[in-house]
Structure formats: structure tokens, C-alpha cells
């Protein structure tokens, strides 16, 4: 039996081969590079950042400046180049910092486009700034900018395993709810819409299929980190990773996420595997013969990483402090690895009232793109931000705008649409924040 101290030492300070990090760096950098090209080619820089007159913000990040049109293109160019810098370990410190700042900065400009996997990319690229992934088979070593090393402290690999495992595990935990497990919602809506899927599509009309997918997904997410940690079942687990992500990728519009996960989970394989993988692609001859390097992580950095781990465990679970149904009010919903859990749609008729109580009915299409309108109609913090925007807009139009109210109707997982907020609330008088929003109407539980 190993004591706790030894276990911690083994998982953090023991020196292990750098090979898994070399693969990770290469795969992550290249997938990011491809994602950015794809985003650019699809015209999304213009569509998501340049065309909209108004951007929804994250609470606490209102200060992140919106950019000039060319600024967005510059930011994406920086992202693409620094992604390559990460992949090949070129000017690594600068590349990793630039990538993190450019990527995260762009995400923070408009919360409409929040995706869990963007958040995942931000977290991983943040971690990568501090990890010695460029110390082997890299441009920096070739140029003599850093001294080559073939070993790293175990923590630099285990923190990535932790982050990946946490994403899966919490995603699995989030699936343990009545809609998902007892009603196969929302898959019972989404799967029949895909009944032209090759081979298995004809099964999608049956609710049993939705149940199988729901339960299968829950079991997969909860257990896959542990399966990947075992030596014996790792290959089986990895085959499941590939199968799971490719199926979800072909069924749903989830973009690059499956490829990020398929690439990133390679980190669970042994150093031996990665050494052979690197040799297989014959990057360059490298002496993998293990030798202990000097300790890499300074004490402050180790403390910071411990804090990071604690925050990562606690932050996604913050929703427990809010009353009511999380999927309905979405307070504490983001940054919680809740994916594919809700089919939600809303409609919001805003009314701007002047001091005499005269009203302007707002046509959302005058101000928002269809995606922004869809997101705004179901997310309370967006309702507040939009109300503030409208009030300001009409005051600038020399209208004595006073209160901003809205009739909002929302449908969740196939339930009939019902009123979402108190229609008499002056939304422009509400402040965005983490305080429980009492003007949200309670969720009507019509089934268990």
C-alpha cells in the first residue's frame, strides 16, 4: 500500500516520458488550426462578429472590447499562426500565450456563441502555457531556444488527463436527470429528425432507440475516463471514444468538438505508445531513453495548479445554489459541461415604455441576428442585456424610454411553451449578475 504522500508524489513530481505531451501538442495545435480555417472559410467571422450591431456579454467580462472589423481578422490570423506554433513547438511560450489570449478574447466578445468545447479549448490552452510540451521534437529545440528533455514531471500529463476526465464525468453526471433518463428527452425529438441517417436511421423513429442512446451516452460519459485510465481496457475505451464521437458528429451540428476529443484522449496512452507513434510518423530521430530532468514546476505554480483543479471541480456545480429547474432558468448552466441536454426555443416580444406608459413593440430582427434572437429568448441574462441595449437605443432616438418589459414564451424538451418571466418586470431595471433572478416564473413540471 502506498501512502497518500507517495501517491501524490507519483502523480505529480515523478518524472515520466515527455512523449505523450509531444503528441498532445501536435494534435491540439493542428486541430485548432483546422478549426480556425473552417470558421474563417464558413464566413463566420463576418456573420458572428462583424454583422451584428450588438453583442451579448458574459457577466464580469463586459470590459472585453469589441474590435474593428480588421481586428477580428487579425485575431483569427494570430490564432491560426499560434496554433501552428503550439503544434510544432515554435516560439512556444509566445505562441501559447497568444493563442490563449486571442481565442479566449474572441469568445468573450459574444456569449451568444458559447459552446462547452470553446470553453474546453480555453482551459486547455491556458494549461498549455505552463506545461513543458515543447522540450522535445520541437522547433524551439532545433533552434536551440530551449534545452531538449525527454522527461517531464508527471503532473504535466496528469493535469490534462484530469481536465479531460472531468469533462466526460461531469457531462455524464449532468445526464442523470428525469428528462434524459426517464423521457429520453431531447433525443426523442432529435433522433426522429435524423431518420434518413444511413443504415440505422430507420430505428430512430422508435422511442426505444432514443432511450438506448440516452442511457448509453450517460454510461459512456461517466465511465470512459476510468476505462481510459486502465491499461487493460484502454484500447477498447479508445475505440468507444472514436465511435461515440463520430456518431454524434454525423448526427448533430457540433462542429470540431468530436475531433478535439478524439485527438486529446490519446494522452491516456502509455509513453511507450506515444514514442512509437512519434517514431511511426518519423518526425526525427530522438533519444527516448529516459533520464530524469530537474523539477519543472515551481512552488507557486504548483499551488496555482491545485487551485485550478479545485475551481474546475466546484465551478460547474455552482447551479445547486439556485432554486428551481436548471434547464429552465439556466442560472449556473454555462461552463458546466452540459451538452445536448435541452431542446429549448423561445419567443420574446419586448415592449419599451416611455414615462407616460406609451409603448413601442420591438421587432427583434431590427437589432439581432436569428441566432442571437434564438439565444436571447431563452437565457435570462441575455434578456437583461437586451433590455438595457433597447433602452439606450431608444433614448438615443430621443424617446423618453423608461421601462422595458417582455412577453417571453419558452418550450423545453417538448413541453408546451409557457410564459418564462413575469411580464410586468422592468428588465432594464435589473442588473446582470449571479444573484437569483426572482422575476423568472417557476418551471411547470408536467411530468416527473
Amino acid at each position, binding site marked *: 500500500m502506498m501512502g497518500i504522500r507517495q501517491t501524490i508524489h507519483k502523480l505529480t513530481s515523478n518524472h515520466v516520458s515527455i512523449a505523450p505531451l509531444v503528441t498532445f501538442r501536435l494534435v491540439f495545435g493542428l486541430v485548432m488550426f483546422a478549426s480556425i480555417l473552417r470558421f474563417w472559410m464558413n464566413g463566420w467571422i463576418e456573420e458572428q462578429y462583424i454583422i451584428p450591431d450588438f453583442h451579448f456579454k458574459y457577466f464580469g467580462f463586459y470590459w472585453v472590447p469589441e474590435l474593428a472589423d480588421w481586428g477580428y481578422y487579425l485575431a483569427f490570423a494570430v490564432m491560426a499562426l499560434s496554433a501552428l506554433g503550439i503544434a510544432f513547438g515554435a516560439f512556444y511560450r509566445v505562441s501559447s500565450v497568444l493563442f490563449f489570449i486571442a481565442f479566449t478574447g474572441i469568445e468573450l466578445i459574444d456569449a451568444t456563441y458559447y459552446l462547452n468545447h470553446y470553453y474546453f479549448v480555453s482551459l486547455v490552452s491556458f494549461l498549455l502555457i505552463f506545461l513543458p510540451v515543447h522540450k522535445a521534437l520541437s522547433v524551439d529545440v532545433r533552434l536551440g531556444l530551449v534545452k531538449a528533455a525527454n522527461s517531464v514531471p508527471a503532473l504535466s500529463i496528469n493535469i490534462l488527463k484530469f481536465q479531460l476526465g472531468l469533462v466526460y464525468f461531469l457531462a455524464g453526471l449532468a445526464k442523470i436527470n428525469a428528462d434524459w433518463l426517464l423521457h429520453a428527452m431531447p433525443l426523442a425529438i432529435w433522433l426522429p429528425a435524423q431518420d434518413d441517417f444511413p443504415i440505422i436511421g430507420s430505428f430512430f423513429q422508435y422511442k426505444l432507440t432514443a432511450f438506448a442512446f440516452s442511457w448509453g451516452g450517460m454510461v459512456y460519459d461517466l465511465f470512459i475516463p476510468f476505462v481510459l485510465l486502465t491499461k487493460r481496457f484502454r484500447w477498447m475505451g479508445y475505440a468507444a471514444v472514436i465511435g461515440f464521437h463520430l456518431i454524434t458528429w*454525423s448526427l448533430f451540428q457540433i*462542429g470540431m468538438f468530436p475531433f478535439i476529443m478524439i485527438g486529446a484522449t490519446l494522452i491516456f496512452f502509455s509513453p511507450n505508445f506515444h514514442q512509437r*507513434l512519434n517514431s511511426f510518423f518519423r518526425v526525427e530521430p530522438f533519444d527516448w531513453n529516459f533520464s530524469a530532468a530537474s523539477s519543472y514546476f515551481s512552488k507557486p505554480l504548483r499551488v496555482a495548479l491545485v487551485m485550478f483543479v479545485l475551481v474546475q471541480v466546484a465551478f460547474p456545480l455552482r447551479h445547486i445554489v439556485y432554486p428551481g429547474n436548471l434547464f429552465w432558468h439556466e442560472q449556473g448552466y454555462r461552463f458546466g459541461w452540459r451538452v445536448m441536454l435541452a431542446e*429549448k426555443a423561445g419567443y420574446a416580444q419586448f415592449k419599451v415604455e416611455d414615462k407616460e406608459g406609451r409603448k*413601442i*413593440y420591438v421587432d427583434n430582427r431590427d437589432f439581432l441576428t436569428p441566432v442571437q434572437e434564438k439565444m436571447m429568448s431563452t437565457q435570462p441574462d441575455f434578456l437583461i442585456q437586451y433590455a438595457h441595449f433597447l433602452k439606450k437605443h431608444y433614448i438615443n432616438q430621443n424617446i423618453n424610454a423608461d421601462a422595458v418589459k417582455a412577453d417571453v414564451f419558452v418550450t423545453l424538451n417538448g413541453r408546451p411553451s409557457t410564459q418564462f418571466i413575469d411580464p410586468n418586470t422592468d428588465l432594464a431595471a435589473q442588473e446582470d449578475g449571479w444573484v437569483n433572478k426572482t422575476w423568472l416564473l417557476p418551471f411547470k413540471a408536467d411530468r416527473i
Partner: protein
Amino acid sequence: MMFRSALFFILGSAMLVASSGCTDNTPDQPSGSTFEREDMLRETAQNVIIPAYSSFKADLGQLSSDFAQFESSPSQSNFEVLRNSFLQAYQSWQPCSPIEIGPAAEQSLRFSVNTFPLDTAQVNSNLSTGWDNLYSAQNNDAKGLPALDYLLFISDDFNLFTQDSRIQYFKDNLDLVTEKLDIVYNAWNNGYAEEFAVNSGTDVGSSLGLMVNELNFDFELIKNAKVAIPLGLKTLGVAQPETVEALYSDASKDLLIQNLKGVKNLFVAGEGTGIDDYLDNLGAKYGSENLSNAIIARFESCEAKAASLGPSLKSQIENKPSEVEALHSELQNLVVLLKTDMPSQLGVQITYQDNDGD
């Protein structure tokens, strides 16, 4: 060796799955109780879309020949005939309005045919100084059916219509509408109907996705442009009756009703299998009733509210707006179902952008 074969096995099976995922549109539907979206689309095209374009085309043809008749022998009676056939054409445009899909979207048909309110200052300046191109940006609000409405109904005396360059402006605008419609009509009759039917997925570019989005878009135009704006709901309650559709002929009310019927008809595919039947097949409920019935009931109540208005929407707004306000809230009740419950139950997407499924 073991390692290499394992790697090849995994990459190989990955590519197999990936490639099967890419052939989404293969029409190898199994027979059985599966709802055939392709049949629904085919019936919608045959029962609703093509007939709508056909009758608009026929009425434009009649308008054109009545116009030629008037041109050759201008008289008050020929003028009345011309006016009537214009009103007929304006009515038969209404069911085409929600079908801004495929060829119509490419041609911006709705925008070219029926952008209102009319910019009369621009029309008058065109009439006095001439015009080169009705497609130029300055003529965005000075063309199409609203321009014809103005020319024919600004005066009851046929003599004004024959003055200045009014005849030519009428002709150019009628040509523009006819040309656009012909392109769209021909496209539907030469292959697009089949393209529409086989594009039977549920993503944003699928025919169902397009129909759901455009049906909503047009319905919100009814609610906002045809009702809310004239009522003054965007101007602090100060009514803007002069912004109604067909201001000069005062045909707004009938056009509104025809538009509502047109949207409903697209939803039910006439007598055929439509989105309503698809919702039933999916088991979509609204409370204890079928969602499709709830939607149809609200359509009917919107129509009833519209029908109960006086003959002129404009004077109704000026004199007794409360009934128009009641229509507006009925329209809003229906928007809720069309924009939230319907797309949500159908599982259609509104954007190509990536999502998390929320």
C-alpha cells in the same frame, strides 16, 4: 507489428464511419410506418406552392392583357376592368409571399414584388424626371405591386393615369414583377420541385428547415408590417394608418386575410400531407391536444378576428383600433406556437453554426 495493425484498424474504421456519416442524403428510406418527409414536401409543392405561383402568373397575365386593352382604348370602363384585375393579382400574390424558398429567395421575390409602404416621393420624382433602373437602391421602396396600387388608385378618374409617364411606369413595374415571377415559376416547373422534395433532411438548408423559417418570417411580417406598424405599436401608440399595405386601393384587409390563409395552407399543404401531419406523426402535443390542431385553431381565430374588421383596415385603425389590437394579440399568440413549439418539436435548426444542443 501489433501496434501498426491496431492503428490501421482504428483509422480504417474511423474513416468508414466518417464516410457513412457524409452520405446523409441517400434516399434509401425503409418502407414501413416511417413518415416520409419527401412525400410531404412533394405534396406541398404540388398542392400549394406550384398552384400559388400558377394562379399569380395567370392573374398577372390577365392584368397584362387588360392593361393592353386599356392602352389601346383608354376609357373609364376599361380602367375599372384594369383595376379589378390588379386587385385580383394582388390577392393571388399573398399565398406566394411565405414561399421565399429556393428560386424565390434567389430572386428576392417578396422584396421585388411587395415592399411597402411605398415611397411616393420617389415614385413622383421618377414620374417627372424618368428612371433608369427599378432595381437601383433608390427605387427599393418605389416599385412592384405597391407602385401599381398607387398609379391605379390615386385617382378614380382614368385620365390622370394616362398622364406623364404613368403608363410607362406601370408597364415597367408590371414587367418587373412578371419577369421575376416567371423565373421562379419556371424553376419550380423545371426541376426545382423535385430538388425541393428530395432535400428532405431537417437541417437549416433542408426544405423543411427553409419552410419553417420562411413561414415564420412571413408570419412576422404580417404581424409587424401589416398590423403592428400601422397600429402605431412601433411608434409609442401613435397610429400610422398610411403605412398599411395597398394604401390607395384600400384592399389591405382582404390581402391580410389572403396572406393568413396562404401561410396556413403552406402549413397544412392544402388537402395533402403537410407539416401538420408530420407533427401528428411525431406525437407533438400542446397540453392535451395535438400541436397541429392548436396551431390550426389559432390560425382560424386570427382569420376570424381579421374578417370581423370593417372593410377598410386604414379607417378601422383610425376609428376603432381596439379590434385591430385584438387581432394583433391573436397573431402574437400564434407566433409563439410557430416560433417555439413547432420548430422545437420538428427538431429543425435555424443556423448552420455549431451548437451544443441547447
